[in-house]
């Protein structure tokens, strides 16, 4: 760290882990800064009117990363959250006055337990209040979901990225109610179903990995619950997560499966080398440290390069198959 340009806290306030590779990160960032500047310039030309019409150009642009200063607005547009917001009978401010104190206890318990090491959450009471508001309003306006642990991390990172409570609420609502399968309802059926979908996809695309993980006896839920529930927040490096979310908002929940497959492929050698469950879990735990995962730009390239045949259609068909079976 001593020789690095970068501190041990990232720009979103997260502590970098003790084993963070600053040298590698310096190297990556020296290149990535140029990429960011180039992308910002391109966006300012092509999308100077903030008109994000869904087409191939937009997809290409989003996959290459949304510039940080327009991210909030762009997320609102491409996810459909802006539409949800405009069509809602009640505004966020009105919704804020609608909730009782029913669910709040479990949210309050989790507030200080959401990114406790993050310097912004640790030092800004206002941010914790915003998180509380978003989660309380969301839980009360969707009683099928209520409060599910994991939503605190998603809302927390949305807040850190957007610095905007209202946008965070509408983005969270759109994610949970429109973009993602039924991960967070009380039975978590969408989550259980996606483990089956992932299993089938890994079996088809990476039979060696599938056989090995199956042989060791690791249920997918063991290694990947947090991947799906937190949309990789608190799993992968922050910038990598935000780049995944750029694409998730535009392209939908197939992204989560594609990212999972890419992660498995990147760690194929380590997975195949593991001889028991405990070694395999260490591989899963350390995935955030892989150079290719740290390099968010290269990683997104891998996500689309390594799993190009996984269309929404194909994944939806598999989901339908396993939902029927369950």
């Amino acid at each position, binding site marked *: 760290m001593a020789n690095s340009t970068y501190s041990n806290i990232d720009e979103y306030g997260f502590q970098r882990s003790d084993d963070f590779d600053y040298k590698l990160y310096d190297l990556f960032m020296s290149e990535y800064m140029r990429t960011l500047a180039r992308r910002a310039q391109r966006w300012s030309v092509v999308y100077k009117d903030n008109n994000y019409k869904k087409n191939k150009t937009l997809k290409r642009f989003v996959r290459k990363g949304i510039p940080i200063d327009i991210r909030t607005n762009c997320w609102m547009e491409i996810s459909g959250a802006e539409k949800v917001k405009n069509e809602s009978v009640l505004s966020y401010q009105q919704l804020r006055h609608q909730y009782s104190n029913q669910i709040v206890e479990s949210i309050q318990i989790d507030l200080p337990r959401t990114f406790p090491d993050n310097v912004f959450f640790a030092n800004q009471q206002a941010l914790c209040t915003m998180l509380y508001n978003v989660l309380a309003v969301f839980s009360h306006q969707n009683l099928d979901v209520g409060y599910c642990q994991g939503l605190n991390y998603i809302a927390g990172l949305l807040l850190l990225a957007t610095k905007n409570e209202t946008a965070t609420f509408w983005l969270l609502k759109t994610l949970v109610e429109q973009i993602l399968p039924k991960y967070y309802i009380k*039975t978590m059926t969408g989550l259980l179903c996606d483990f089956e979908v992932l299993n089938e996809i890994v079996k088809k695309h990476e039979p060696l990995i599938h056989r090995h993980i199956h042989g*060791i*006896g690791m249920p997918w839920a063991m290694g990947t619950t947090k991947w799906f529930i937190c949309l990789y927040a*608190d799993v992968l490096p922050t910038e990598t997560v935000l780049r995944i979310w750029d694409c998730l908002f535009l392209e939908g929940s197939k992204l989560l499966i594609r990212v999972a497959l890419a992660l498995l492929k990147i760690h194929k050698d380590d997975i195949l080398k593991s001889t028991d469950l405990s070694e395999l879990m260490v591989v899963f735990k350390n995935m955030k440290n892989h150079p290719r995962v740290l390099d968010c730009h290269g990683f997104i390239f891998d996500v689309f390069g390594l799993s190009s045949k996984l269309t929404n259609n194909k994944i939806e068909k598999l989901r339908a198959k396993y939902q029927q079976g369950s």
Partner: protein
Amino acid sequence: MANRTGTAQRPNGQTQGKICQFKLVLLGESAVGKSSLVLRFVKGQFHEYQESTIGAAFLTQTICLDDTTVKFEIWDTAGQERYHSLAPMYYRGAQAAIVVYDITNQDTFGRAKTWVKELQRQASPTIVIALAGNKQDLANKRMVEYEEAQTYADENGLLFMETSAKTAMNVNDIFLAIAKKLPKNEQNTGQAGNAQGRRLTEGDTGPRAAGNCCK
């Protein structure tokens, strides 16, 4: 073999003969201190605000017991009710469980009893279950009496201790007590190399519970 207590090797450099590996699962209501107990036991640390666990966390810790090295493979599970359906994969095949409640919250004790019942019905019939009344440092806000929990533990054949992840009270002790109670026979011994073989032996994994109507 790495050993944090530093006594795995005899002073004369000879390694100890017997190494046992056990799968241990922590269960209990959200925010009772499951992750904090594990963090205290494995790393000797305590965070006032411990991140809420999603899914489950996996950690290992090794302790020495007389002439045996005991390696715990610890599954620290999520407490929220809706993650309940994922719990069986963690306690299935587990040789030990710590069911945790918060002594300042009566509801969490009720939830702990539910977990004990479920383990008695669904887990391995030989599983060693310990009941931990955590947050003992907050005894002035106590809502669950020590005697009440002790009586319940006695009636159900559970190990019982009140613990504090914050002050470290009884944390190592409860794991040690479990280690003492676990059978250190052939089935559980062996170097890491043949752990896979062990894991695949019949009866070690999978539903073994007799009279389990769900299977």
